[in-house]
């Protein structure tokens, strides 16, 4: 075993991913009823998209607000290929994720020319534009939605029971977390953080800012597309409101609450936001109003999100330790 050391390091760096996987399994044990598992599926799908968004917003410092649009591409792509073309689950997911990736590359090129405020508005327009395209009456059903999408099949196994479906999406989430963690700890991840903190300095030390920006947008979009692609066959029917601008903003809230840039925090944020929207009565109005206020409060007092709480606690215990770093996300107009 020549590369034992490397493997060990990989295992250690992926410890949080393993912890997340254990929590996901425990959740299924504790909430085995269909309602609990359905909530679990929603949480996990939101978490996949939020992890993708975290890579762009937190790690690369690019304020993007259109993630639901990429979910829509993945979902409608998979649904169309499975329903109209009769493809099976895996190739449909692969092709629709690739489509989201290509659109993400285009958005990445847009992002090269824009910063901060303007980028946020442009990505919001991309998301809203995709939603507006889907509402147009077409072969994809327009505002009425698109159905019936066949259930997914993997290696001859059909995902019928809620438990199977939950473990399918949970498996995808663990894969995404593994990949994202690996990416962030690699050279690419460090280059992204350097780029976020100071683009000029990063360029000076040889970071290819152009390539990295396009890459990270493509990856995040593909992950968003994956979230949509796995959810469409499970839902059976999809309609544009599942991917509206409001959903993009919810995903943004998940990233903020989870601490900009922390992929595991984004999973927590997804769980919190999805649970609140479902649990608090008023079809989301109360929950989202509250969450909006939470975002404002976080930005005022804890710009590092839940993870910042830990840092704050540490600072209270050791008053003379060095000051916590600010979120170094670049948002010059």
């Amino acid at each position, binding site marked *: 075993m020549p590369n034992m050391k490397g493997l060990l390091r990989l295992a250690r760096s992926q410890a949080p991913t393993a912890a997340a996987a254990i929590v996901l399994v425990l959740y299924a044990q504790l909430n085995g009823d269909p309602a609990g598992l359905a909530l679990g599926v929603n949480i996990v799908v939101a978490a996949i998209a939020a992890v993708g968004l975290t890579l762009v917003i937190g790690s690369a410092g690019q304020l993007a607000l259109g993630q639901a649009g990429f979910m829509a591409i993945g979902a409608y792509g998979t649904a169309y290929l499975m329903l109209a073309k009769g493809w099976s689950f895996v190739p449909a997911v692969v092709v629709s994720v690739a489509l989201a990736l290509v659109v993400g590359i285009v958005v990445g090129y847009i992002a090269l020319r824009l910063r901060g405020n303007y980028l946020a508005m442009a990505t919001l327009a991309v998301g809203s534009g995709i939603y507006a395209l889907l509402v147009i009456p077409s072969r994809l059903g327009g505002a009425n939605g698109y159905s019936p999408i066949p259930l997914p099949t993997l290696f001859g196994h059909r995902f019928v029971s809620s438990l199977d479906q939950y473990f399918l999406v949970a498996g995808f989430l663990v894969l995404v977390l593994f990949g994202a963690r690996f990416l962030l700890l690699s050279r690419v991840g460090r280059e992204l953080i350097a780029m976020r903190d100071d683009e000029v300095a990063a360029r000076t030390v040889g970071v290819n800012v152009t390539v990295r920006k396009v890459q990270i947008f493509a990856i995040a979009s593909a992950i968003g597309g994956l979230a949509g692609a796995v959810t469409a066959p499970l839902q059976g029917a999809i309609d544009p409101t599942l991917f509206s601008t409001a959903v993009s903003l919810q995903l943004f809230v998940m990233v903020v609450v989870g601490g900009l840039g922390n992929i595991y925090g984004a999973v927590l944020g997804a769980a919190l936001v999805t649970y609140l929207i479902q649990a608090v009565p008023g079809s989301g109005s109360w929950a989202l109003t509250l969450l909006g206020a939470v975002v404002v409060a976080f930005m*005022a007092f804890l710009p590092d999100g839940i993870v910042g709480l830990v840092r704050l606690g540490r600072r209270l215990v050791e008053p003379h330790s060095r000051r916590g770093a600010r979120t170094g996300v670049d948002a010059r107009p």
Partner: protein
Amino acid sequence: MQVLNLLVSGLTLGAIYALVALGFHLVFKMTGIIDFAQGDKVVIGALIGLTLVQRGISVVAVVVVIVLAVGLVLGVLYDLIAILPTQRNGEIAAIAATVGMTLVFANGHQIVWGPDAEPFPSIVSGNFAVGSVEISYQSVVIWGVLAVVAVWLALVLQRTRLGRGMIASATDRMAATSVGVNVSRNRSLAFALAFGLAAVAGVLVAPFTLAGGGGLGTALTLKGFTAAVLGGLDSTQGVVVGGLLLGVIESELALWLPNSSVDPVVFGVLIVILMVMPNGLFGLGRQRRA
């Protein structure tokens, strides 16, 4: 005469966009922040107006004045709650906080006023005809308000000590403070004016758009921002022209495109404008904004 009729409705729509865009312009010029809740402030203004009308205040001028006053107060509170505490956390914090406020407004109004959009009586009813073109008095009122607000704002920003102080605050907070500009008060004032303006715009547009309902705020935010960027976020004149132009283009597109295809086109246009000419038609060419 379809083209002329569409021109008139386009100018009305454009005036609405221009009023929203002026809010963006005001906040951006005076504080350097782009406020994602701008469209939702319009919705809040409309709903406050609706409550007043339902309470039996039938004189429109009174409704507008009360809504303006409430809007100004809400603007100060908005700054106090969302903007002031985030100032030391970097600029993304302020933007994210305005996105948070978007959620508060867009969902909070459904708690207070119910989830469904409600009809709003027009301020002045009736039409008059110029040749074969029908023009409603409501449109004339909107154009009038836009003209007054735009001229007043241009004068304040360009000719008064206050306006210059505000621009100085946005350009360089530290330098402005050191020469005696009260940056904090100016920011508060800018947000008060922006909210007041948006609230009045809400009352004016509500007869067309209905008051309340989900999604309207974000749509207005995007359209208003497109208008502002089209004309140039830096220029008061540019923002007004950009708004009117966008409204007219959108209306005339109805000649060729089905109604539902207009929005994707407009959002596409926004992205192209941002990439090709981020300073807009009337922008100051010295500095690249995006």
